[in-house]
């Protein structure tokens, strides 16, 4: 386990060393500040629009930071020539795959935690109360979301270049998040080949919209039952494992 943690520590330091995180933090902070100052028809304590804007921003930035970090790990090791040095150590390939993924995920989760804290502070200052159970569930489910996305980007990094991996990961994430629930219905109205493709995407790809609890959080619906949370956790673990396995399959055939 220690090689995995050693690799992960480096990635966590990497994300806070680079300026991307700070740029995102400043953008989110400024956007939340100005959004919270808006007044509409002299009515006070309107907060849901702020939650909508805030959650959209922190989800988007967290996803971009995590995916770009995960997607550039393996290609940068190869490009810098450190790949061979790394494997001269007693490091198994599966440990490399898991370590790089784990570090990307923890780094992304740390960024998300900071953004989420800032968001909750803004909401609390505007409205005076925050539904804690729903906030906790929203936070937890998006962490699962980041875990699957990091694994997906990590798997793509063993097959594609950095730009291709990042682009593909983000396109799949956005496609499934926005259209995932209706993909099959839309595909049913198309030409048979497009329908088959839509069905394939619908059943094979992970459904990121499962982890999107914004509607419930913003509109104060009831929290999810524990059984559903357990199912979603197992679902996320399944897809994470699948993507890591796909990445390991490519790496184990690489000649040093």
């Amino acid at each position, binding site marked *: 386990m220690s090689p995995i943690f050693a690799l992960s520590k480096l990635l966590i330091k990497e994300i806070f060393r680079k300026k991307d995180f700070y740029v995102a933090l400043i953008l989110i902070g400024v956007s939340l500040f100005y959004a919270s100052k808006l007044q509409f028809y002299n*009515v006070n304590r309107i907060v849901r629009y702020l939650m909508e804007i805030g959650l959209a921003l922190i989800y988007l930035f967290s996803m971009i930071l995590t995916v770009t970090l995960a997607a550039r790990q393996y290609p940068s090791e190869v490009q810098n020539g450190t790949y061979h040095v790394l494997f001269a150590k007693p490091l198994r390939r599966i440990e490399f795959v898991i370590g790089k993924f784990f570090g990307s995920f923890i780094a992304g989760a740390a960024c998300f935690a900071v953004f989420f804290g800032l968001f909750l502070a803004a909401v609390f200052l505007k409205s005076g109360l925050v539904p804690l159970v729903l906030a906790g569930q929203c936070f937890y489910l998006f962490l699962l979301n980041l875990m699957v996305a990091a694994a997906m980007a990590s798997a793509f990094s063993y097959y594609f270049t950095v730009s291709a991996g990042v682009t593909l990961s983000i396109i799949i994430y956005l496609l499934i998040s926005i259209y995932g629930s209706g993909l*099959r219905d839309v595909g049913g109205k198309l030409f048979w080949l497009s329908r088959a493709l839509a069905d394939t995407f619908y059943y094979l790809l992970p459904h990121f919209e499962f982890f*999107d609890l914004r509607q419930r959080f913003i509109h104060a619906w009831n929290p999810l039952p524990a059984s559903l949370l357990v*199912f979603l956790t197992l679902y996320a673990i399944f897809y994470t494992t699948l993507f890591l396995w796909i990445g390991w399959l490519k790496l184990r055939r690489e000649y040093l």
Partner: protein
Amino acid sequence: MNRRLLFAWPLFLIVPVFFLSSRIHAALIHDQPSLGLEDPWDRMLGSAKEAIGDTLFLKADSYFHGGVNLDFHEEDPHPGPAAPPEETPAPGEILERPGDWIARVNSRVQSHEHRHLSRNQFKEMLPFLAMAVNLDPHNVEAVLTTAYWIGTQFDNTEEALKVLVKGREDNPANWEISRALGEIYLRKKEDPASAERFYTEALGKAGSGEVKKYQLIDLYYRLGESLRRQNKKDEALEAYGRALAVFGPEGNEPLKREILQEIRLLKGDADR
């Protein structure tokens, strides 16, 4: 030295070209009609502004329903008062289309219950209504809905008037906005003279478009009411008479009776 000047001659043209181009630009701007691009939203979004405004209006509707998008349903979940009770979904009922396990998980994570905002939550729609009206001033439904919520639910008559006045400027041919203005002056501002002006204007605009019978009756009736409050009895009677004339055999009986009652009262006062 001469060689340097030979290669540097284009630099001497930069200054006169710069001033000449700015003069040409200023002349062109002066001669062109205003394109209405003073608004920053116009400059940023162009013609997409209206599409975004319409989307935000739908978002406001979604907010009214607790974040549920009603396009999930093929049928309107508010079928109207004439619909049999079993067709109207009960509050809290999950309106879920049968599907595979993925659709079932989605229906549990994303709520699809049918509910409306409570009174103290109506304000949450206001940002989207404000943006919808701002971005698409020709969306009459957005203008009327925004004015209704501000004027009725938040009792902010002045803000509602501002929205309607702006809406009237942006949609000069629309009778519904004139009617809504008449309603505010009659009910809230207690100014029947202004109400009469707006109802008359609404009737003039409605004559040139498609207006349902009951809407026409309503306009004449309210015009009659605003005239009655100004003690203009003859004109009020004429307006009520026109409302009755529009009624068909299957008219709204309670309203018909009310109009007849008003006519009787006015005639009774006139006889005294």
